[in-house]
């Protein structure tokens, strides 16, 4: 087989002592940048990029790629333990990860996230190995009409995200959509609600908002409930911790979640511009609408943690497909990798894998090894991280404030974003108190601008006609999938539930 000989060639290149060292460095740095809130993989890549000037491209690219997918492992740790997403793709992991920790299952949650990340990452690399050329067709069939439909599909999942009180949920989503309108209007170039500020030209980035709403908002709420006064009181009740390892039930109940999350994550990751963040949010919503127990989501359901975790790792693998097969970066981090290729004088594009097959297959092979290394690092590091939750809250609280502020600042070195984060924290506190949905706000803030821009681009292209959505085969397939996921599946679920209820009555 051609693929296997290529892969073995890649492995033989990857497994040299020096390259393995670079891979290990990349994995560790990735873990660390993932753990620090706000400080994401693109910033981590920044630190090591200049160091790669004098390196062999194979070792360098293995290291840089490991930072990227390694951060997907690390980012979840603070999501679970502190309700503060380590980076954008792990926002969805706070939804059920933190409630799990609160229930005294921090250990199993951390182990399951590592396992889920490993499965997602490995399935992603497998799909690259076997199907990269096929998926490059997917990445090149996406134009503005498809992006709009994709964003619309994401926005439809708001229906499951807004929770039990739909009025408050809708208000939350509308706040998110409103915040999404800030920034220079892409089409006319005019500033919207920027008040002449240069820092608002690019719009409101959702990371400060998410850190404020989830991390600090939760902290304020804990202070409000008087948690800091309880001398021995900790953020997460560690005494309830019965066992460190997940139960067989945890693995069994989420085995299909992992499969679904991996495939969905990979496909979304392949689409340039969608990326790991959208993949994880969509996987969470999809899992919730498919679940037999949707009412448990947000209260510490293992599937609610596993779905976004597999998806964001699979997406980070998927994002390599357009990079390697077309030379198009799918995300901020892969854009840095593209810049690295160009720094080394390589020419990314459709001929890249042919012309640089050693580099390309060395990278792919290293991703299998990198995921194994990361799984091992995680399993050993988790007992250390779990110690965080044993720190009394009155000591941990101030540290969280500092971490949130510092993390926000490091993203763009912007004070305005730190103030935005603080503002979001106060809003988050009240949202928590009165039962609004911060998750819906964040999802709307991510997808709103994407939907608006894509729709306006589409209608400019078609001179105002909506027919364009039905003339392109890629658009039609997305419409079909949306109808299937949003209309048919819930209907089937409802019929199934009714049939069951009927049987019960009969019985």
């Amino acid at each position: 087989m051609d693929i296997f000989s290529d892969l073995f060639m890649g492995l033989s290149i990857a497994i040299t002592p020096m390259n393995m060292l670079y891979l290990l460095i990349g994995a560790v740095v990735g873990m660390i940048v993932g753990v620090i809130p706000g400080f994401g993989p693109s910033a981590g890549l920044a630190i090591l990029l200049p160091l790669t000037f004098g390196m062999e491209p194979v070792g360098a690219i293995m290291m840089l790629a490991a930072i990227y997918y390694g951060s997907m492992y690390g980012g979840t740790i603070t999501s679970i333990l502190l309700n503060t997403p380590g980076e954008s793709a792990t926002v969805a992991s706070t939804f059920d990860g933190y409630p799990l920790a609160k229930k005294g299952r921090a250990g199993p949650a951390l182990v399951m996230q590592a396992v889920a990340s490993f499965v997602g990452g490995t399935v992603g690399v497998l799909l690259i190995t076997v199907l990269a050329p096929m998926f490059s067709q997917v990445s090149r069939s996406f134009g503005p009409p498809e992006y709009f439909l994709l964003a619309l599909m994401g926005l439809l999942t708001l229906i499951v995200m807004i929770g039990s009180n739909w009025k408050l949920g809708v208000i939350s989503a509308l706040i998110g959509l409103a915040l999404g309108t800030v920034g220079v209007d892409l089409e006319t170039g005019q500033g919207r609600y920027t008040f002449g500020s240069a820092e608002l030209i690019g719009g409101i980035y959702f990371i400060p908002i998410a850190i404020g709403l989830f991390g600090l908002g939760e902290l304020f709420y804990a202070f409000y409930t008087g948690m800091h006064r309880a001398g021995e009181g900790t953020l997460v009740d560690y005494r309830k911790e019965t066992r460190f390892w997940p139960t067989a039930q945890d693995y069994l109940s989420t085995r299909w979640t992992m499969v679904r999350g991996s495939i969905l994550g990979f496909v979304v990751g392949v689409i340039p511009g969608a990326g790991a963040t959208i993949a994880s949010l969509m996987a969470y919503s999809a899992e919730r609408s498919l679940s037999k127990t949707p009412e448990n989501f947000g209260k510490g359901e293992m599937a609610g943690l596993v779905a976004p975790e597999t998806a964001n790792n699979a997406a980070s693998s998927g994002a390599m497909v357009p990079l390697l097969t077309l030379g198009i970066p799918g995300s901020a981090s892969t854009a840095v990798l593209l810049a690295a290729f160009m720094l080394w004088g390589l020419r990314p594009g459709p001929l890249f894998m042919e012309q640089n097959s050693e580099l390309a297959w060395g990278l792919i092979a290293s991703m299998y090894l990198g995921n194994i290394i990361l799984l091992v690092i995680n399993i050993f590091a988790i007992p250390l991280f779990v110690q965080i939750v044993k720190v009394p809250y009155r000591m941990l609280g101030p540290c969280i404030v500092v971490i949130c502020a510092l993390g926000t600042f490091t993203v763009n070195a912007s004070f305005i974003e730190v103030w935005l984060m603080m503002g979001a924290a106060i809003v988050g506190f009240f949202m928590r108190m009165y039962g609004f949905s911060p998750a819906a706000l964040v999802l709307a803030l991510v997808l709103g601008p994407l939907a608006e821009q894509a729709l306006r681009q589409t209608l400019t292209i078609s001179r105002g006609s909506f027919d364009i959505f039905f003339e392109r085969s890629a658009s039609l397939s997305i419409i079909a999938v949306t109808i299937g996921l949003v209309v048919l599946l819930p209907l089937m679920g409802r019929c199934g539930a009714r049939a069951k209820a009927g049987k019960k009555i009969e019985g």
Partner: protein
Amino acid sequence: MTLHTDQIASRIKAGVLGMALAAPLALAGAAQAQTYPDPAQTLDWTIAFGPGGGNDIMARTIVEILNTYDLYPGNITLENRAGGSGAVGWGHLFGQAGSGYGISTTSGSFVTTPLQADLPWAPADFTPVALLATDDLVLVVAGDSEIQDIGQFIEFAKANPVNIGGTGTVNVDFIVPALFAQSAGFEFEYISFNSMADQTTALLSGAIDAMAGNPGEILGLIDSGDLRALAYSGNSTPEALAGVPTMAEAGHPIGVSMPRGLILPPDAPAEAQAFWIETMQRVVETPEWAAYIENNTLTPTFLFGEEFRTFLTETQNGFEEVLRSVGAIQ
């Protein structure tokens, strides 16, 4: 020897005096008295964008060359001060007015950001060192398009209104096709995208007819035949695009390009400006610089000192005029 001790003594005196008054001010004064550059001073190199971007790569390439050839005696710290499309980083440099130890590289946003936001500075405020290269654009269509060359493209565009994609509106991506269309006499809809990646996929998916973009990122797609290059906006076509005419050769000169240059804070000492002009003249002679120009498909264009300032003012005026006429800025 006596002179040497005297110098130390006067320095100590200045230092003690300085501590009594305002330490940093006195130390800076002492440094200014030395000839530029003082190896004891650290050069604060601002990169106004995040890592991996064009600005970042250029700055790191120059610093690498300075180190390799020992062209700068002191320490250099490179700092990514991203935010507000360059406003944060260049604002930081603006705040170092009068100093010769702050420096930054420029790119297109150096001209466009002040047009979009209320900033205290204009490009011409800074002390100009040199324009080293320009970023120019290539007009491309999809490889399966019937349009083979720029002549056919103009004919096609005159008969059917075309969609041309680019990144952002207050950007050279919009200005270049706008000026070209004006000259060639066709109309088009401009589709604005967030990034080069988005517009490239849109073109490959058949959603738009053509796009203007930096050749560097799409050379691979041009090589493989997935994209077809029609015309180049710079003064001379880079080697990688051999055979593609410039817009001027096609009969429609544009005369607008994005400046990649080097600037010092406003009112920097004249000896600092002179030092950097001389140093950059040596940098651009190195094979490393030639490789940088080639890898990033830039057009080498040199203007030093005040000529660079004039270039910046003219470019900004040209931009302002086009953008005002379409209502993108007030």
